[in-house]
């Protein structure tokens, strides 16, 4: 048996380094889960196409093109649609003990959250870029300068960063994935299959609210 010498770490890792490490881990996880990329985009595209082509004809916007009114508003609200994933991700990390492992390290607590917020903001930016491109594809045209449009996009990213903190807080308070997805859990409650006993030949999807 050989004795092994364990040396103590030289010092705490800097907050920027730890924030970058946590952020990079979040982005790697996102890239390695292509369902998140594809389904997030499909959901965004589906809503945009619905509002553009299904409900578009029924809505009148005072003297301007409906699509020019719709797309900027939709892109802004996408921040909330996409950002909600952060609450689920954080709740998942809490549930799997990832944060407990980080807490045992000599790193700043706030930097862990900052890394997570920055990484999720990057993911929101990616989704916003995709939906904006789709907006142009369905007929949206800029009525102002390119600089103003870039300013609008930057403003959306800034909103994304601000709301990421709210979603991170929600994920931490929720503590588990199901609680962090209020919409999904309410749907699950409403349409939870009831145990089918003898003589039950109806639909398996029975509203629980009845």
């Amino acid at each position, binding site marked *: 048996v050989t004795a092994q010498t364990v040396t103590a770490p030289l010092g705490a890792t800097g907050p920027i380094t730890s924030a970058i490490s946590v952020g990079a881990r979040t982005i790697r996880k996102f890239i390695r889960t292509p369902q998140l990329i594809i389904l997030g985009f499909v959901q965004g595209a589906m809503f945009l196409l619905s509002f553009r082509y299904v409900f578009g004809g029924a809505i009148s*916007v005072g003297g301007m093109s409906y699509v020019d009114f719709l797309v900027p508003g939709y892109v802004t609200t996408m921040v909330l649609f996409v950002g909600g994933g952060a609450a689920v991700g954080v709740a998942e990390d809490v549930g799997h003990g990832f944060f407990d492992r980080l807490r045992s390290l000599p790193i700043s607590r706030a930097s862990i959250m900052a890394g997570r917020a920055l990484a999720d903001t990057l993911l929101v930016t990616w989704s916003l870029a995709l939906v904006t491109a789709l907006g142009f594809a369905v007929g949206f045209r800029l009525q102002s300068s390119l600089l103003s449009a870039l300013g609008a996009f930057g*403003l959306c990213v800034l909103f994304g960063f*601000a709301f990421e903190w709210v979603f991170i807080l929600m994920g931490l308070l929720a503590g588990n994935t199901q609680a962090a997805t209020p919409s999904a859990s309410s749907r699950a409650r409403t349409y939870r299959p009831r145990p089918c006993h003898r003589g039950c030949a109806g639909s398996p999807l029975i509203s629980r609210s009845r």
Partner: protein
Amino acid sequence: MMVNAVRSLTDGPRMTLLLHQDAAHFIWISLAWTAGIVLLAAPAAAITFARR
């Protein structure tokens, strides 16, 4: 306010006529909201994480 700010920036003068305010008005209010949200939620998240 945030949506109006983005609409004012992308739709230009037409949106100013529709909303009766210029883009700068909505941008400042949106930035104030953004700062307020970050100032409230970021420390709250950090404190919640530290106390768990």
